[in-house]
C-alpha cells in the first residue's frame, strides 16, 4: 500500500511541478498577506462568503484550527506570521504559551496555572494530545524530566 501511495503521490508531484514550471494559466493566486489588517479572532464570513466559514475564529477555533492547518497551512500564513504558530507548535519552545500571553487566560489555552501537577493525570488520559504541540518524534520537552 505504501509503495502504491508513494507512486500516486510522485505522479501528482510531477503534475504539480509541470504546472509550476510552465506557469499554466489559471485562477489568480491569492495574496500572500491579507490586504486589510484584522482584529483578533476575526469572523471571516463577515466579509467573505460561506465557503470561508471553516476559518471563522469562533469559540471552537482553538480545537478545530489544527485540522484547518493540516489542509491548508498557507491559508494560516495569510494572516499569521510563522512565528505565531511556532509559539505553541515550535518543538524547541521553552516558554509555554500562557506565560508569553498571560492575558489569554481562557479555558481552552493549554498549560495555564499549575500544569505540572495536572499533566500527571492528563498525560495518562491521552498522551497523543500532548504531541500536537510537543511533537510525535521529538520528545525532548518531556525528556527534561522523564529520563
Amino acid at each position, binding site marked *: 500500500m*505504501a509503495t502504491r*501511495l508513494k507512486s500516486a*503521490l510522485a505522479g*501528482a*508531484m510531477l*503534475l*504539480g511541478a509541470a*504546472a*509550476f514550471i510552465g506557469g*499554466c494559466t*489559471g*485562477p489568480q*493566486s491569492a495574496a*500572500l*498577506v491579507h490586504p486589510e489588517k484584522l482584529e483578533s479572532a476575526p469572523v471571516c464570513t463577515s466579509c467573505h462568503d*460561506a*465557503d470561508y*466559514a*471553516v476559518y471563522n475564529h469562533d469559540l*471552537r477555533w482553538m480545537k478545530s484550527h489544527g*485540522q*484547518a492547518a493540516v*489542509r491548508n*497551512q498557507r491559508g494560516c500564513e495569510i494572516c499569521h*506570521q*510563522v512565528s505565531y504558530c*511556532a509559539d505553541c*507548535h515550535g*518543538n*524547541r519552545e*521553552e*516558554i509555554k504559551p500562557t*506565560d*508569553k500571553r*498571560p*492575558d489569554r*487566560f*481562557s479555558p481552552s489555552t493549554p498549560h*495555564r*496555572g*499549575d500544569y*505540572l*501537577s*495536572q499533566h*500527571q*493525570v492528563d*498525560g*495518562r*488520559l*491521552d*498522551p*497523543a494530545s500532548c504531541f*500536537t*504541540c510537543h511533537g*510525535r*518524534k521529538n*520528545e*525532548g520537552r518531556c*525528556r527534561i524530566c522523564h*529520563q
Partner: protein
Amino acid sequence: MTRGIALGIFTLAAVCLAVPVMAASAGDISFESRTYVPVSGVDGGATHVPLYEYLSIDTEDVIREGLFFRAGGWGRADLADETYNRKTNGDLQYAFLGWRAPVLNAEMRVGRLSLTAGVARNEVFDGLLLGSDLPAGFDVTAYAGMPVEIKQDGTPSGSLFGGRVSQGRQGMYRIGLSFLQEQDSGTTIRQEAGTDLLLTPVPMLEITGTSFYNASDSQWARHDYRLTVGPFLGRVRVIGTWAQTDYNHFFTDPKNPALTPLLNEKLNRTGGELEVGLGWGFTLGGGYTAYRYDVAGPADVYTARLGWANKLTSAGLGFRQVHGDDVENRYREATLNVSTKVGPVRLFGGAQRLEFDEAINGVNNSTMGSLGLAYAMGPALEITASGEYGQNPEFSQQFKGLLAVTWRYDVAAPKEKETEKEKDTEKEGDK
C-alpha cells in the same frame, strides 16, 4: 549545530544584502522584536531570570513580484540561575526564501521550513518545498530535506521527504492524501501515510477529520473526527467528536519512559459539546468526553463554562472534572478570568483552583492567581507586565513574573509613498 550556524549566517547575509535593495524596490518589510523576561522562583529553590529575544522578519514582493522571505528565531541568556541545565540557548525556527507565481498559487520555498500538511505536523527541516493548485480542484505539495530535530545521541536525522495531494470543491468538501518518509544512514526510521477530510454538504453541517497510518507497521495509528452542527438561530452549536488511537503504532520508537507503559494500549475517545449564545454577551457551554481503553479502566471528563464579553471587557468561569478509574486519575479544576481595556491599557487577571482526589507530594490541591497589564504605546510598541503567585503540590510557594516588550516595524511598499508624492504634486499644481 554547524548547519544551524550556516543557516543563521545565510539569513543574516540575505537580510544585509537585501535590505538596501528592498528599500529601493516595491515591497513590504516587517520586523518584529519580542523580548520576554519570565521571572520565576520557589521557596528555598532556584530563581530564574532568563532573558529571551524573539526576532522575525517578513518581506513580500521584494526585488520582484511574488518573491518573499521569512525568518524567525530566538535566543536566551540567563541572568540568574540556569534554566533547563544551560546558561544560554537559541533556535533558528524558520528562514526561507519563497516565490509565488501569479496563477494557481504555485509556490516554491527553500531554506529552513516549518511544515504542516497532511501527516506532516510541525516538521522542521532544511530543504525545498513545492506547492500548487491544479485544475479540477486538485492541489499538491511536495517537500524534501534534512530534519532539524536532534536525536537523543545529539546527531540530526538524515533525510525526509513527502507530499500531499488533495481534491475538493470550495464550500463543499476536500479530501487529502499524504505521505512522509524519514531516513537515517540508509535506514527508514519513519514511514507514515494519512488522509484528511472536510465535508460541508449542507449549511450548518461540517465534518472534519484525519486518519494516520503507520506504513512501517502497516497499521492504522490514529483516527480523529469532529462533527459540528449549527449554529441554529445563530446561537446554538452541537459538536460531536470521536478519536481512536493505537499507541503502539502512533509513537515512533519512544525512549521516553513516561510513554513506554502505553505501547500495548488502545484508546477510544468519544464526546459531545453544546454551545449556546444566551444573548447580552453571555455564552454557555458544556461537554462530556468518554475515554475507554483496552487495558486501563475508563475515564470521564466533564466541562462547563460561562462567558461574558462586550467590546472592552470579557470574563469567564470554567469548570472541568476528570474522573478516572483510580483516585490518582481524578481532579477538579475551576478557573476565572477577567480582561478589560481602559484607553491604551488592557488589564487582566485570572485564578485557578485544582483539587486532586489523591494527594501529590502530600498535597491535594493547588491555587494560583495572576494580575497583569498591557500598555500599547502606539501601534508599534506594547509593554506587558504580569505577576502570578501560587501554591501547589510541587512547591509550597511559587511566584512568577513577566515583562514583555513587543516592537514591530513595518516598511510600506514605495508605491504607497509615490501616491502621497503625487498628491503633494497635485497640491502644488493647485496653488
